[in-house]
């Protein structure tokens, strides 16, 4: 619409529109009803639609979170645990872990001569989880 060519009625209508902001919600509704608009029905319908759409959004976000949680659980389940293995296997694996120069953190355990087999299994499990986590981070 070309502003230069606006006639007086268009200007009056525009002014009344801009000045509608001075009206309270109830006053505004009263005027809209006079203009033939079923404003209460419309607002009720919009409230319902907006609430339903927002609920659907929230649920879809929760669905994503649930999917990720399930995926993480399945990864965790696949992690091998050492506690179920034989003592000689655990001792051999732990010795290999401590002697491996790549494992800088293993230095901390070298002087621990009184570690139990269960402790060794736990340390090996933790090391395995760390290794998997680092790999997953690199891949993503």
């Amino acid at each position: 619409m070309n502003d230069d060519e606006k006639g007086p009625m268009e200007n009056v209508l525009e002014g009344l529109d801009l000045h509608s902001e001075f009206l309270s919600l109830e006053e505004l509704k009263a005027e809209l009803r006079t203009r033939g608009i079923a404003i209460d029905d419309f607002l009720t319908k919009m409230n319902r639609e907006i609430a339903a759409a927002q609920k659907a959004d929230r649920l879809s976000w929760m669905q994503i979170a649930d999917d990720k949680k399930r995926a993480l659980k399945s990864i965790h389940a696949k992690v091998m645990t050492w506690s179920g293995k034989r003592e000689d296997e655990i001792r051999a694996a732990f010795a290999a872990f401590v002697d491996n120069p790549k494992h800088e953190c293993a230095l901390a355990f070298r002087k621990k001569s009184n570690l139990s087999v269960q402790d060794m299994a736990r340390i090996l499990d933790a090391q395995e989880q760390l290794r998997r986590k680092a790999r997953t981070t690199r891949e993503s």
Partner: protein
Amino acid sequence: MVIQRMDSPLDAALNHPDCQKILALAVGHADITIRKYVWRGLRPTFRSDQEILAGDKSAADFVQEAVKRLRGEQRAFDASKTLLENINSITDSLIWSEKKSSDRTGIVDYAETKDEEGSPSDPISRAAGSLEVPGEKLVLDELREDQRRCFRELHASFNGDDEMTKYLDALANGFFKPEDIQKLTDIEVKRVYELRRKLITYAPRFFGVKHYKKFARLLEEGESI
């Protein structure tokens, strides 16, 4: 641990306590936009005797569609603007499209003619240049004169109410800011709000519900107002 999802700016605006008023203002704006286009040749229809329509949609339908487009991200929510400005921008564009579509519907009903060789000829495709068609200009000139006449009648209906007639004069001349109206008319800003409020009672006179219906019928029949 409770993870809380942050609301998008659109959701935050839609959940704001003022949202009801904003939606009502948006419907009022869309309704007035349709009514302004009537003064540009839009032929409106009516639903339930009074609710004005552009095409087959009411102001409320346009607002509902605007919110749907924002939520569906067909239209981006501009967080630097208010929710009302975002909705109004979309409804303006939708109503303008409806007006253009209505204009096109109006010109396809041409009389088929034949060229020198007797083949059917379409006078629209043969028209040279993109200047305003003389017939269209004539209609717009008539509509502008109708506006002036309608405003004079409206103004006269408040004869004796000095403040109201000054307020209407200011609006008709494009002075919308209450501060500007105060400078122009000496009516205090607070009083401008009261005058606007007073006009709720006279809404049918301004929004011309009955008049527009008659106006649309007369346009359809090709009679002068």
